[in-house]
């Protein structure tokens, strides 16, 4: 809250107490890049649902480049085993997209449970990632899916790298490989204490590996991985694999909502639940990869 930053209390001040910022409304990615190069103080704004909260918490951008009118950032495609999400895809669009639902049903289902109806229409996948807030869930979902983020400076990053890379360049799109993806699911029933996302992928030797992330409101997501010797999700030993995953959590995993022991226990329970769901869901299609 701005008032807290000022030391003057906890009541939010009106927006009008803030100095106006320089506003840019570019229409192409090239124009965004030109603005960012010419005005290094410019902060990117997508749906601005997080940015407004940040401003009310005391952040005072001197310049804002709005992505609202930038063409070509909201596409969803699934070609040659790659699901590609433009950074401006809103939660509502992602959750209701037939392309996402066909490519990774578990992602569409998880996406539909993010936030509230108002925020789902406004908030974007790019904003959720680039806000770099531990409590936001896209880094967990896309982290377990090993998504690659295309940045306008020419690099691609993994979602985990966002916590150590402080780029303020434009995120253009997010790519998720589906060619070897067998199943994906997400458990948020214990949110805010612990959530777990699980992706099961088939390796070159035809055995499956489990890629998972564990999140909580107050800690950055943690990646875990367990390789199996089996070829179908139904043959994965859920209890054993879940405990292999949970054992990878760091010793200092405790936060405000639970001790390390409790959080490790929860990750084990939620991962086991997801692996059981994977066995049931893939039972009839003999673990055909998503194409």
């Amino acid at each position, binding site marked *: 809250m701005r008032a807290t930053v000022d030391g003057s209390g906890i009541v*939010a001040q*009106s*927006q*009008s107490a*803030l*100095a*106006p*910022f*320089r*506003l*840019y*409304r*570019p*229409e192409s990615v*090239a*124009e965004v*890049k*030109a*603005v960012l*190069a*010419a*005005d290094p103080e*410019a902060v990117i*704004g997508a749906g*601005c*649902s997080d940015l*407004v*909260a940040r*401003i*009310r918490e005391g952040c005072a951008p001197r*310049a*804002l480049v*709005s992505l*609202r*009118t930038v063409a070509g950032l909201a596409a969803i495609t699934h070609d040659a085993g790659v699901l590609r999400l433009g950074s401006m895809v809103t939660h*509502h669009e992602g959750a209701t997209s037939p392309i996402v639902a066909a490519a990774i049903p578990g992602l569409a289902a998880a996406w539909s449970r993010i936030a*509230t*109806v*108002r*925020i789902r*229409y*406004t908030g974007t996948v790019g904003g959720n990632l680039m806000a770099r807030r531990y409590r936001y869930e896209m880094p967990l979902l896309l982290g377990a899916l090993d998504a690659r983020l295309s940045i306008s400076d020419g690099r691609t990053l993994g979602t985990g790298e966002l916590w150590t890379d402080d780029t303020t360049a434009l995120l253009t799109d997010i790519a998720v490989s589906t060619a070897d993806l067998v199943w994906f699911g997400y458990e948020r029933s214990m949110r805010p204490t612990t959530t777990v996302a699980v992706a099961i992928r088939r390796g070159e030797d035809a055995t499956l590996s489990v890629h998972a992330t564990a999140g909580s409101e107050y800690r950055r997501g943690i990646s875990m991985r367990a390789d199996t010797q089996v070829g179908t999700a139904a043959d994965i030993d859920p209890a054993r694999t879940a405990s292999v995953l949970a054992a990878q959590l760091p010793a200092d995993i405790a936060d405000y909502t639970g001790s390390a022991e409790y959080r490790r226990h929860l990750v084990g329970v939620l991962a086991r639940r997801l692996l059981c769901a994977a066995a049931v869901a893939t039972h009839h299609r003999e673990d055909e990869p998503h194409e």
Partner: protein
Amino acid sequence: MSDPDTETSVAGAPAPRGALDISIEFSLNGEKQNCRIDSNAVLLDVLRENLGCRGVRGSCERGVCGACTVLVDDVPVASCSTFAFAVDGASVETVEGLAAADGTLSPQQRAFAECGGYQCGFCTSGMLMLTTGLLRREPRPDRGTIRDWISSNTCRCTGYEMIMESVERAAELTAAQDGDRV
């Protein structure tokens, strides 16, 4: 760039000028509005302070409580967390636009009155706009859908059951008004 106050630029061209204040044009409850606003103005302030829409309430100012809900191009948004520049070219609807010009209440307003969907009334304008947005999208929502939508707005008074009933009744009255007799 779409703003006349900024210069069109391409990579390598001179720095574009950002604007500190801008002109926006949008439709408010069906009437065209032209406003000159500060770049950082939020829609809630513009609607309440500049355009006199006092039915749009501010409370949490974090997009959480729903008191400030308005429809922008038919979808509910938190006006407290929407920069006013974002509605340039859009259609904005507030609770002031619900009743007919002769004062006849809309089906949603009648339903909330009939079912006691409010006590102090602070949340009611946001609830009415949320209901309007929902029924445009799903004229006959089931209870689960109503709960999903209503759960995004906070009411400190009612316990929500009467609000749920009000939304169901609003669906019936809207269908009846549209000629689809229930």
